[in-house]
């Protein structure tokens, strides 16, 4: 064994051991010792003093796996520390399927973290979720930027036909971002485009310079096509007022409304142009979304920009430092359309599935500022919680993202996450794949999705 190998072996084992230890003893290892850091410990102490669940267990299920699961466990450790309970978390890549199976089997978890409120809405309607206290709505308004929108998003209709607040958003991602390599931009003398018109000009300039503007990857196994839906949603927000977006999501206007089709075609302006996309548009349909950002960091680079959500750095090659090797800019809005700076985002909704005091206590924990500040400090996701100081964020990038979130003139949730499962995780994705490869026109794709909507009613 060379010494370098041995060092690497030791380091990786140490990291593994450490993370295993963290995972194993979730209730004894706290990432930030109590009393330190920019967190409201007084609030935490008050919570701990008023809740005691020693010896009890809380089952939480969510979609985060691997490292994401570890980050979640770090946050749950504080709940465990405060109440003396044990928290068991299990995550799954096919969470949407698993939670439905669990409901059928009669074994839902105590608390469920939904990556998509649309799915939570389906279950709420069937009466599988436990509504939160009535004053939670006010809590949203008091504590979240644009709190009323968030409260609305967390309030699907229950089995009685009336909306109730069913969950608390525990993690937020911003999606209207374009990732790029700052050095590549500098070397070629490109500026950050401030408007969609400038972006289109920049795209053409890049092509003229012999470069490829965009990397696009829609592949994701059974979920192939989902990144395209984000593009379309961003374009609807940038070409239409937010009310149209809301109507579109609820199917109050048909999916093949000319305004929606126009937004799809704006996506196609970029995606269906073989010069604009690395590998051409048909390759984009099978390139895995986790592999597609790699092109930004190669020499010569395969592309200059990659439009993707704030969680994509997980899939960047090792050693890429956000802020230096990679950075993002806001996916610009049209200057000519005067619709402000709309931001598309998504978030995880924590809900109660088993009506137990410990589950309600967990919701109360989520209503303190600590878990939101922790999630910001971990650097993975953001929070619109106004009680979280910007200092809590792990780095400047996080702060910059938070500022985007907090200063958005319009904030809207990822549309496909809000639509019923059959549309948002099936029909929409498939139609987008076919549109990108050119098998369908925008009209045909939209019509196909509308047909699926019709069959649900």
């Amino acid at each position, binding site marked *: 064994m060379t010494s370098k190998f041995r060092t690497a072996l030791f380091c990786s084992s140490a990291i*593994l051991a450490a993370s295993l230890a963290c995972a194993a003893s979730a209730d004894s290892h706290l990432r930030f010792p109590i009393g330190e850091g920019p967190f409201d410990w007084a609030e935490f102490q008050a919570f701990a003093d008023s809740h005691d669940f020693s010896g009890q267990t809380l089952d939480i299920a969510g979609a985060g796996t691997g490292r994401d699961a570890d980050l979640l466990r770090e946050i749950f450790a504080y709940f465990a520390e405060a109440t003396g309970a044990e928290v068991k978390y299990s995550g*799954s890549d096919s969470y949407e399927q698993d939670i439905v*199976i*669990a409901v059928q*089997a009669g*074994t839902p978890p105590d608390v469920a973290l939904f990556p998509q409120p649309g799915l939570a809405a389906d279950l709420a309607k069937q009466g599988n979720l436990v509504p939160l206290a009535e004053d939670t709505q006010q809590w949203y308004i008091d504590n979240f930027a644009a709190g009323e929108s968030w409260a609305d998003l967390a309030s699907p209709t229950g089995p009685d036909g009336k909306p109730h607040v069913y969950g608390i958003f525990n993690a937020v991602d911003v999606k209207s971002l374009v990732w790029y390599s700052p050095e590549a931009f500098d*070397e070629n003398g490109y500026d950050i485009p401030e408007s969609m018109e400038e972006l289109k000009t920049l795209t053409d300039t890049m092509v003229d310079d012999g470069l490829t503007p965009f990397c696009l990857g829609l592949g994701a196994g059974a979920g192939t096509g989902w990144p395209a839906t984000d593009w379309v949603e961003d374009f609807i927000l940038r070409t239409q007022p937010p009310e149209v977006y809301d109507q579109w999501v609820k199917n109050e206007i048909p999916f093949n409304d000319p305004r929606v089709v126009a937004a799809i075609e704006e996506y196609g302006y970029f995606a269906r142009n073989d010069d604009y996309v690395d590998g051409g548009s048909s390759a984009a349909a099978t390139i895995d979304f986790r592999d597609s950002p790699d092109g930004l960091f190669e020499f010569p680079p395969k592309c200059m920009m990659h439009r993707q959500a704030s969680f994509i750095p997980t899939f960047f090659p090792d050693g890429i430092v956000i802020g230096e090797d990679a950075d993002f800019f806001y996916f610009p809005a049209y200057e000519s359309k005067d619709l402000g700076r709309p931001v598309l985002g998504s978030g995880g909704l924590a809900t109660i599935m088993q009506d137990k005091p410990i589950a309600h206590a967990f919701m109360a924990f989520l209503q303190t500022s600590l878990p939101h500040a922790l999630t910001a400090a971990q650097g993975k996701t953001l929070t619109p919680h106004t009680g979280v100081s910007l200092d809590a964020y792990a780095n400047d990038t996080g702060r910059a993202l938070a500022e985007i979130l907090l200063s958005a003139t319009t904030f809207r949730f990822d549309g496909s996450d809000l639509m019923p499962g059959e549309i948002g995780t099936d029909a929409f994705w498939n139609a987008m794949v076919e549109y990108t490869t050119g098998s369908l026109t925008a009209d045909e794709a939209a019509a196909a999705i509308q047909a699926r909507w019709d069959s649900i009613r």
Partner: protein
Amino acid sequence: MENIAGKKPALIWAKNIAMAAMVLIWVIPTFGLLVSSFRDRDQISATGWWQAMLPVELTARARTGTEATPDGPLFRVEGNIFDDEEARSYFSGTPGDISAFGTRGAEPTTYPAGTTGDLGDGETLTVNADGSYVWITPEKPGSRGQRVYFAAESPPKLTLDNYRTVLSGDNMGRAFLNTLIVAVPATFIPILVAAFAAYSLAWMEFPIRGLLIAGIVGLLVVPIQLALVPVLNLHNDIGVGQSFVGIWLAHTGFGMPLAVYLLRNYMAGLPRDIIECARVDGATDFQIFTKIILPLSLPALASFAIFQFLWTWNDLLVAKVFLPSADEAKVMTVKIADDLLGSRGGDWGILAAAAFVSIAVPLGVFFSLQRFLVRGLLAGSVK
């Protein structure tokens, strides 16, 4: 089978070549994955697995140093590009010779190594194959040196890290155990139940025997997805819920048609005389079954055991539905498909290693029991 006709050399050569070609087509894809499981993620996306043992030509990036010595009106910076930590970070091991270099990311290989690139305004850069460079610039270098892009060979790197990550990570050992716990009972119990049924369908006379055989064989067509929801509801109603007991019962049920079909086929081919003799001697059916049929059917039982074991070990859907989704109860296929693919989806080396870790046991089972396979499935071969 040695026969006179097959001894012509040309024919033997043709046979060998044909067989070798077929085996090659069958084995190469799996071999590719095996090789990939020993490579790290960057290498996998850089070159194909067939080049795993070859050095990989990489383009890397570095900066020159900043210590300048005056050289007339110009400044001269010398050094070795590999002194820069960033340069070394691209290479796993000792980098090979630099073949070309450049100063723009979009054109990293404009100048061949050993030549001097003219950067304009009197600025030049020379980079040699061994990494030594000379940078001549009219302005005193600031806090950072000049960006240099270059192409050089990275030695091939094969590593066990992927296997280490998979084996030590995150409950993988537990998942392995769970799979074993699911697969073994789910193999033994169906065999036993099916063996009895197969014997009665093969050697006992009773009125609607033909219809039953047809019905059982007919149930082979049922797609299992159909049965998932109703059976799960049934399990809930009788209190079994999502548990190991549930999945054992489920696999027994789903594997029954094939088991009965194969075993009955085999048993029907057993020599009639032995059974008749035993009957005449006064043995009960039960005794005939346990003392004659079972031993003689061992090849068939073993071969069905292999198929059933493989099927339950590699099954994903039944495990997802009938086992709880808690982390401690996951089997390996679920662990890989749900956990690994989600969190490490871009890390194909780790996925490859996980796939092979889960193949190891079925392959072991297969190789140790394979002689039964040949004998076990032929009806009427026991003459």
